[in-house]
């Protein structure tokens, strides 16, 4: 690269925070900050949200290529833990923030890692893009379809590299399925199964829906703990009285922040299906739900959610405890079926698959994408699409009825109530 990393950092910092237009080495010297002593070709990263996945050994890392330099949380205990862990693991003091906007504007941060509950994802990603940061965002990408559209737009407009953090479309055998996506992709592309295809994501095909991520109703308001900035935790979400079950490790059970097991696992499971079916540029046109009535605040269980694409392909999600009986195929087409562990009704399928070309190579090294400015294998566009499928499902669950969807406009057809869930208002002063 002709352009040095320092140049690029300086440029990134320029318009965002006029007061801090200083070369990194000067800044470092001024603060006695050791962060700038290391060779500067390493990229830097800041994590927003260090109470859950942000603290995992997968993400709380510094290595040759990218250093963790800053952390942010609205819970003082989380922040203290992260600082202690930084000290212990890397022997250095991480920059600590309690307001994520300060981390996003920190000129010393190249990559913003969003590891908060999902009601913040859209807003933070857009602001990070505006601030010239590249973005590593945990799943689900956004809580509403509208927020996802804004993220896509901002990432494009501001020339950012975005990675959504689920990976089964390009590596690992996902959960209980017992096979990587690659042979499935080759099999589907070969046409041996016929068309249209039905994909069943169910306990019977090796998936767990984490049904325990349900909310509680009739919560009795509790005093907010001293260490928590609850207002900042809620951010754009509606104000509701504090209860410990609403926050931290159990927030997924409330529609204000996420959508239970569907939100937690849905994008993990559905995203590879979009890839396998070759539908990254489109979306289903219909969603049907079979579920008990959902409470307006607390996420409940569901029996099944069925998505149908315009060409007749289907994705069927079967809730925990409501799985099909017997041996159930993961993918079923008019000419063949494939079960978990890549067991297939087509004889000698592996011999056939092996002779086919591999799927087109994809860019699966995020830091390399940041360096070469190429799209990551799971970026804003396809990430927004698979997340939209999750969100279409949660809209249908909340309304308890079949919805029809227009993949181009990304709005529901003939159902204003559903469309109100596409673009949900944010609590002032937050605005995306």
């Amino acid at each position, binding site marked *: 690269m002709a352009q040095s990393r320092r140049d690029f950092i300086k440029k990134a*910092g320029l318009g965002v925070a006029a007061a801090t237009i200083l070369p990194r080495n000067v800044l470092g010297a001024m603060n006695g900050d050791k962060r700038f002593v290391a060779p500067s070709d390493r990229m830097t990263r800041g994590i927003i949200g260090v109470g859950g996945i942000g603290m995992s050994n997968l993400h709380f890392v510094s290595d040759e290529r990218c250093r963790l330099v800053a952390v942010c949380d609205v819970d003082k205990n989380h922040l203290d833990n992260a600082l202690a862990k930084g000290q212990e693991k890397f022997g250095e003091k991480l920059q600590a923030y309690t307001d994520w906007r300060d981390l996003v504007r920190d000129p010393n941060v190249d990559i913003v890692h969003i590891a908060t509950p999902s009601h913040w994802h859209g807003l933070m990603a857009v602001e990070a893009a505006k601030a010239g940061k590249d973005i590593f965002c945990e799943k689900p990408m956004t809580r509403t379809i509208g927020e996802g559209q804004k993220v896509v737009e901002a990432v494009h407009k501001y020339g950012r590299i975005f990675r959504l953090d689920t990976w089964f479309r390009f590596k690992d055998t996902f959960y209980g399925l017992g096979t990587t996506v690659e042979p499935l992709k080759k099999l589907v592309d070969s046409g041996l199964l016929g068309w249209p295809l039905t994909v069943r994501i169910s306990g019977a095909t090796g998936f767990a829906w984490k049904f*325990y991520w349900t909310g509680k109703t009739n919560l009795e308001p509790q005093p907010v703990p001293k260490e928590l900035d609850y207002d900042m935790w809620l951010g754009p979400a509606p104000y509701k009285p504090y209860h410990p079950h609403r926050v931290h490790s159990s927030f997924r059970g409330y529609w204000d922040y996420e959508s239970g097991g569907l939100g937690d696992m849905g994008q993990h499971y559905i995203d590879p299906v979009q890839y396998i079916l070759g539908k990254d540029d489109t979306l289903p046109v219909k969603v049907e739900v079979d579920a008990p009535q959902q409470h307006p605040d607390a996420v409940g269980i569901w029996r099944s959610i069925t998505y149908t694409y315009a060409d007749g392909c289907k994705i069927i999600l079967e809730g925990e405890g409501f799985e099909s009986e017997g041996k159930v195929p993961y993918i079923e087409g008019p000419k063949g079926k494939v079960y978990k562990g890549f067991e297939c009704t087509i004889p000698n399928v592996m011999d056939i698959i092996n002779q086919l070309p591999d799927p087109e190579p994809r860019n699966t090294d995020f830091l390399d994408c940041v360096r070469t400015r*190429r799209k990551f294998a799971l970026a804003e566009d396809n990430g927004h699409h698979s997340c939209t499928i999750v969100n279409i499902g949660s809209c249908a669950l909340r*309304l308890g009825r079949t919805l029809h969807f227009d993949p181009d406009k990304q709005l529901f057809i003939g159902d204003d109530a559903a469309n109100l869930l596409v673009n949900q208002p944010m609590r002032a002063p937050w605005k995306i």
Partner: protein
Amino acid sequence: MKKIYLIALLLVLSLSLYAQDARNRTVETVVADVLAAMPAQTADVLSVHMADLAATAPQSVVEVAKLMKPAAAGVKNSIYEYALTGLVNYVNDPQHNAKAADVLKGLQEAAAACQDAVNKSFFESLQNMLRPYQAPQEEPSLTLKEAKKLLKAGSTAEKCLAACTIMNEQPAKVWKTVASALKSNDGQFRNSVIDNATKVVGASALVPLFVSKFKKLGSEAKADVLNWFGDNKISAVAGLVASAVPEGGEVGKAAISAAGKIGGKKALAALLGQLGGENAEESLIALKSFKGDIQDDVCSALANELASGKDFSTGDNGKLLKNLLNLVNARKIAKAAKSVYSMIGSGSQYLEALGVNSLQNVVGSDDVDKVASLLDKAAPVQKTALQKALSSTLHTLAPAEQYSKLSGIMKKAANVANFYPCLAATGADEAVDDLVSAVDAGKSGALASLMAIDNYKAAPELLKIAKSDAANAVPLLNRYISLVNEYETSPEKTRYSLGEVLSLAGSVSDAKARTGLKKSALKALSAVPTMKSFLLAGKYLDDKEASYDAADAVRKIAAKTTEEINYADLKDNLTKAAGIYASTGNADDAYVINEIDKILAKAEPSPISELTEEEKKQGFEMLFDGTNLDKWQGDLEGYIPMNGTIYVSANYGSTGNLYTKKEYRNFVYRFEFCFLREGVNNGVGIRTPMGVDAAYEGMCECQILDHDAPMYANLRDYQVHGSAYGIIPAKRVVHKPLGEWNTEEIRVEGDRIKVTLNGEVILDGNLRTACKGHNVSKDGSKENPYTYDHKNHPGMFNKTGYISFCGHGEGLKIRNVRVLDLGNKK
């Protein structure tokens, strides 16, 4: 009464007519009916109730809202929240929106009257749901003037935004903007402009610009453009891309990736040419995914390389050859077989090794004998590859032919052991038999193949060997688990098999292997949702090596099973499991604890049976009060406490019996029983020793039998319920229906036995009198004319013995078992 009437009347008069529905219910009644159904379990139920609520809006809304209290301990607003949200969603459905305005009116009234901030905001948010959808307003974008300014002086992100704005507003400027961005050293800006330009004018409109500028671009921009060619699959530039392939560094890499995506003859040739070069790795990836038939090109490249006469074994000389073979292997290029065989026969050790390795990927159905003969005389290092090659040729044959062909070859083979893995690969039943005999005969290598064979018939053999072969026990048992997992369809057999593994695991000395075995067995067990597997997994909750897996298993089984689990076991095991989850401190586990709490909240404690006041006075002793079988011995697996009852699953035979701990001579024995299915068979053994057939070796067996089942229409009279089996028939009466409890009393004094069922005496007789004192035949023969069933009953005159239940299959429940010991009189 008058007052209620008045209110109803007022409602009817003051409000519109639909305040009452077709069934003439008042609004309050409608509301109460709806609330009772919340939350609705299905969409249809919801619709019916919401239609009622909508019909009575706005009053219904106001009524529901009035019931809501400020959140506090014990306040349960959720059913009102279900009702009002359900109503709003219902009238928001275009098919039902006739009453939307009334619902809105009701919500407005409710909000106005509400004093509680939280509930008020709830009503307001519901009002919001009733407004028609309007797309959110777009933020004003930059003006062109601002954009131009930013393009000069902004940060990178701002420059990207500025260029994007300019291109969107003035598409004619796209080419100029791209051309100038291509000159920029800022890779972020360059790529962002290219990206957004593509969105505005489409890829094909930009191709001429890129082609004309390409030669003069800096290397980074060149790489960007090449990547763009590839991502957009611009086939028109295949030649340009191919010519850039030999370039080194990032440009070459980008060209290779683009060539792979664009495809075509030129690209293929260029990529094959790189397999020996600097970017060989990237080229190989591109070729593995190269679309279309590449066989001929690869084969001729391979033949040419082999004909080059290089000494492949020195330095980097073999790189191109190796990568061509990698490609042959990855894409199973069968046409390369000729070259591969030529390498094997070349006499060069280097080429031979490479050839043998590739053979498995190029062989077809005609190669069986050829490969077999190579394998028979294979050098040790070549064995594995040749075994794979033979297996893959065999797989081209029909399943039935594979074994017969191979066994024919093996009969003539010099090194039979070389063929064991291929034998395993056939998966045939006969192959299991052959491998078992080979293992028994101590042939080396046979055991590994027996473990590899994918046939459930091998499972019992593996278990048998594991029991005697301590050195191999761990891999044998692991393989056993995986076979059971894959093939066993009966939950009970799976549980039994996993139980065997768990008990054998205990004697494995290596801690890591032992722990691993237990963990895999428990994981498999967690998918067997039966009561017995729950109890089995529960035994490992205190085992530090496997407690987390045991916790997972009991939780999953408890959540899934449709079988009844004894409350005390359920509570003990799940409470222990919750403690184990709590100790991990991770978020998912915290939720699992919630799930456990839910399961426990639904379970009911077992009822406990007690002696009546009269029984207490008489001196009865409780033998089973519902909680435990402490006063019993024998088959404690087949008879287990189950929510206040004894659940019987014991099978027929001398081991399937449950005995009192004490022996009795004269006694009154009382119990209740019920049949869970038709035709249940069991019996009460009287004065019986342990481990024998009470009907003959005991004083007698007092039959327990659902003789009402149609299958027993032709039952012999001495077999009906209550009979002293084979000695004195009882009166045949009808039992209570399946699932209902019958009461029984058996009174034994001296030789006399009296059986009372549901208050009716069905047997009262003296055994000694019945057989005229001849419990066994006088002449020692098996035929005894004196007994009713003409059989010998040697135990009939036992002075004392245990009381027992004599198992004969599942389906019986017993409770409230009491005994009055009458001592040794008579």
